[in-house]
């Protein structure tokens, strides 16, 4: 078995030491730092980008909140304005209605006054006419001429009893 040939041990071990030391120095000084650098750079980049993304997300949320707030403000402002307009319209309508009602009341009062006037006048005429009719009736029936004052008093008394 060639593995047990002791004379080959020395050259194998010598070259193993030489090549392995070379390997170690190439790895430790050149190859591994390069890989580590690239991996670190990538990790840093990823972390940076994640941080940036988080910051942008916060910013976007703030912008959305501001938008919502301004929207709500605009909405409430618009509602207020609409309310003012409606109130004004309501007030104007109420005022117009009031005026109209007052005007109508006044006309109604006038009309009632006129009616009362006419009624009074008619009632006054009725007394006179009744006195005339009563006087004429008494004269026709009894042939007695009654004086006006007595007739008037009698009529007034009769009317009061009615």
């Amino acid at each position, binding site marked *: 078995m060639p593995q047990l040939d002791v004379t*080959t041990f020395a050259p194998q071990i010598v070259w193993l030491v030489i090549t392995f030391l070379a390997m170690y120095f190439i790895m430790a000084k050149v190859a591994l730092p390069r890989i580590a650098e690239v991996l670190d750079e990538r990790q840093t980049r990823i972390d940076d980008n994640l941080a940036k993304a988080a910051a942008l997300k916060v910013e976007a949320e703030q912008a959305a909140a501001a938008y919502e707030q301004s929207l709500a403000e605009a909405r409430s402002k618009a509602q207020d304005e609409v309310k003012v307009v409606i109130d004004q319209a309501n007030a104007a309508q109420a005022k117009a209605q009031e005026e109209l009602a007052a005007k109508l009341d006044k006309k109604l009062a006038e009309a009632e006054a006129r009616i009362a006037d006419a009624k009074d006048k008619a009632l006054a005429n009725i007394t006179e006419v009744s006195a005339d009719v009563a006087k004429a009736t008494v004269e026709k029936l009894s042939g007695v001429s009654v004086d006006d004052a007595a007739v008037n008093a009698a009529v007034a008394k009769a009317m009061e009893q009615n």
Partner: protein
Amino acid sequence: MSNNPLHQFQINTIVPVEFAGIDASFTNSAVAMVATVAVVSIFLIMGMGSRALVPGRWQSMAELSYSFVADMVRDNVGNEGRKYFPIIFSLFMFILFGNFLGLLPYSFTFTSHVAVTFTLAMAVFIGVTLIGIARHGLHFFTFFVPGGVPAVMLPLLVPIEIISYLSRPVSLSIRLFANMTAGHTMMKVFAAFIVPLGFLGGWAPFAVDVALTGFEFLVAFLQAYVFAVLTCIYLNDSIHLH
């Protein structure tokens, strides 16, 4: 080509070198080691050449091997293991690519030699022990005294603990060496049957070899992984003791 299934493990000197009385010849094993270092370096350094933020396929594989070993070290050793990450990464990649390149036809698998695996395992063993002593001083030796055991049992258990500790480099090196040697020998044994069995009968060992090739890729990865994980576990033991 010899039909001897063990011929593939033969060490052939290419350039004879002798340095201070030590035979330091450049052999086919040394070629495989140099090739492994070159391939790993090219794979990682050129793969990261573009340093792209969004990696391509090659860069992804380089990054994947980095994070694979980094996760392994973090899971098994914790934060104190960061310091030792380069050495464990080098071990893992060295053994992994040594195993993979050894699967190429006509190439040589240096991890199939016990001299190599035992040297690596001893380096891990000595390094881990020294780290333990440096961190804990003499307190490190309480590692051999299991907790919650009656004092009467200690004369029995302490030697067992010491033997189990000392056998770590042996099991670590034999596991890798034996797996690689057995797998390559099996492939060679079945391959040697293909041509003698002729056009009709040769298909059976050929099919076995195809399956074994896939299996050997799994073993190549698994053994490199096991070696690295056990190194992490030993390191964790000497950093945290029990």
